[in-house]
């Protein structure tokens, strides 16, 4: 009887699920225990886990993954408009559509590797973004964004005679997805997404992806056609992005083109790097940290800062308020950029590597200390 999952994998999965499902409890003291933010934690967690399957395992740095996220959102909203307000068909539809989209783009982009791949993905994402704003307005509703209206056909809902009162909201089997219901809906998907990613990483297929990252030449001289492997990884991660985009549309049925912009693509790169490229939990943690601090820091303003520094003498406090105010509120992106540069320079393995280093220090305290990060080979 072949083993289905190793003991360690099983423990990791159980631990992860537990941490996710109890988030509303343990995040409450941090001021993050409310459904709206928790949903975003789940959604961007899925996005990052999927991105890591491509970048972390295969080593291909895509700068265009937000395109798939956006496509997922649009597809889900269209499903709400045309078919039914039930979330499940929307999710399936979104994953299928973004997967197909990823198949086409991946097929073209993966003919190149290294920076050319990055630039190609960037070019495709920018094209999608520009088109969404201009010619594709009938599909995307341009700058206004695609939203639900009372007059949408919703064929399936109409056929079963399901009516509703007031603003149309996505649901699942009639159960509304607001508040904690929405959170647990998303959490279920994150756990599923994590499970699949874990299986992939632990499969022969996953090892092939890691081998592609490690040495593409050897891979070819070993008898593997690397392109279908890389393409599969690309499509899978595109589907993850589509799933995340669809979930965002479920919790907030308004899809806009800005979700496809390359800054959004950059954000998922940041999450993955910050948490730890190539690790399973790292990208999720990266996503949570970025979304958490985005939430906290962007809400801060001068008044709050003034109260925070008020224990200091007035002159000093004023200066500190001035300085720190540059890093919060609208300036939150500055903090993010700085954090990112610092992580890439000093901790290329992200938070997970930091944890490992600290753990290593404890294990053999007094000995030579942390070892330097493994240097990755360029993907060309």
């Amino acid at each position, binding site marked *: 009887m072949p083993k289905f999952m190793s003991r360690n994998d099983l423990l990791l999965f159980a631990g992860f699920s537990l941490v996710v499902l109890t988030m509303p409890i343990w995040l409450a003291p941090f001021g993050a225990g409310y459904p709206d933010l928790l949903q975003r934690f789940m959604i961007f967690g899925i996005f990052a886990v999927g991105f890591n399957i491509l970048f972390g395992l295969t080593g291909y740095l895509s700068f265009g993954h937000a395109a798939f996220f956006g496509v997922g959102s649009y597809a889900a909203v269209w499903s709400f408009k045309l078919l039914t307000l039930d979330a499940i068909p929307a999710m399936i539809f979104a994953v299928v559509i973004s997967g197909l989209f990823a198949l086409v783009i991946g097929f073209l982009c993966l003919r190149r590797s290294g*920076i050319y791949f990055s630039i190609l993905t960037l070019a495709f994402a920018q094209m999608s973004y520009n088109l969404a704003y*201009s010619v594709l307005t009938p599909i995307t509703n341009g700058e206004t964004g695609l939203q639900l209206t009372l007059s949408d056909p919703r064929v399936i809902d109409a056929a079963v005679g399901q009516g509703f009162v007031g603003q149309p909201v996505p649901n699942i089997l009639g159960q509304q997805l607001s508040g904690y219901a929405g959170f647990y809906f998303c959490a279920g998907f994150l756990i599923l997404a994590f499970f699949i990613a874990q299986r992939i990483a632990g499969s022969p297929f996953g090892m092939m992806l890691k081998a592609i990252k490690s040495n593409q030449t050897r891979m070819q001289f070993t008898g593997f056609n690397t392109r279908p492997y890389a393409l599969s990884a690309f499509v899978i991660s595109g589907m993850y992005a589509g799933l995340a985009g669809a979930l965002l549309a479920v919790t907030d049925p308004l899809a806009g083109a800005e979700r496809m912009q390359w800054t959004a693509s950059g954000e998922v790169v940041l999450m993955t790097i910050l948490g730890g490229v190539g690790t399973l939990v790292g990208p999720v943690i990266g996503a949570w940290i970025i979304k958490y601090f985005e939430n906290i820091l962007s809400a801060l303003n001068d008044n709050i800062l003034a109260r925070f520094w008020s224990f200091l003498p007035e002159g000093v406090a004023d200066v500190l308020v001035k300085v720190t105010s540059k890093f919060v509120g609208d300036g939150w992106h*500055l903090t993010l*950029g700085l954090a990112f540069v610092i992580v890439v320079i000093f901790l290329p393995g992200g938070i997970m590597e930091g944890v490992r280093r600290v753990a290593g220090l404890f294990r053999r305290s007094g000995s030579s200390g942390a070892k330097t990060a493994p240097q990755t080979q360029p993907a060309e």
Partner: protein
Amino acid sequence: MFEVIFLQFLNGLDKGAAYALIALGLTLVFGTLGVVNFAHGALFMLGAFCAVTVRMFLTMETVTVDPEKLSPWGSPLEIREPLVQAWFGDFGAVLVNYSVPLSIIITIPIMLVVGIALERGIIKHFYKRSHAEQILVTFGLAIVAQEVIKSVYGPNPIPQPMPTDLRGAADIGAFLGMQANIITYPIWRLIYFVFAAVVIGGVFAFLQFTTFGMVVRAGMADRETVALLGINIDRRFTIMFGLAAVVAGIAGVMYTPLLPPNYHLGMDFLVLSFVVVVVGGMGSLPGAVAAGFLLGILQSFASMNQVKAVFPGIDQIIIYLVAVIILLVRPRGLFGRRGVMEA
């Protein structure tokens, strides 16, 4: 019909010149240091904001209230006089008027320092790391640069007037012996084109005719051999990075009258410039310049109504489309050397 085409061609020149200048710097850095610099667009943007800053200083005013006279709104009349004008009289007024071109004088040393500091401080440590990590760190730097600018200058574009004498349009058609007033072209755009040509020519001459340039070109071809000759190539590469920063910076300064700069100007141009570099051929200087103009002109043609009627939205995607086709069909780009970054 000829006039229309010629006009579109001209319209593409200034944008093409900007692409070419940014792509030139990108290529210099990539060719010499082997670094993929995602922060290069930010250098263009920083240059533009040097111009903004210079103008801010030049237009600092004294406000005197004249109680005798009343403004049309009935309040005491405020007389605003730029300080430079108060100090230098008419010459001060000229300074204010010509603030954009004058900024170049100040931008050059600033960008040189910024470039060298960046290379010595951060980029240097990434020579031996993967391209992915180079992209990531420079991408991070670009975000930092743009956010700093945003927090200092605010999120809105800041228009920079061009010198009064250089406003208006030149009647190129009449100049070329055609009917008057058909092909007219804004003077500043013409200046930008000439400026770009001079800078590009200067960079090429510098690389071609100076010993420094020769060493750098040799280093671009084969870094290790030159290092074996005992030439301190690293220091020269630092200077090259500074030079690339200067080129990007002054390109940004001169572009301000054409497009009011805002904090994400750099990112907007960066993505396009990367596409330009790829189309021209990674590491090829002539390729970068040619592709810059080519894409600028193509974009100008794509935005013609006749073209848009046939291919809706083509103006939005033409550059990316060209890049995609080039990368798939001829991966080394138009001018790229065989085998250089062809993977």
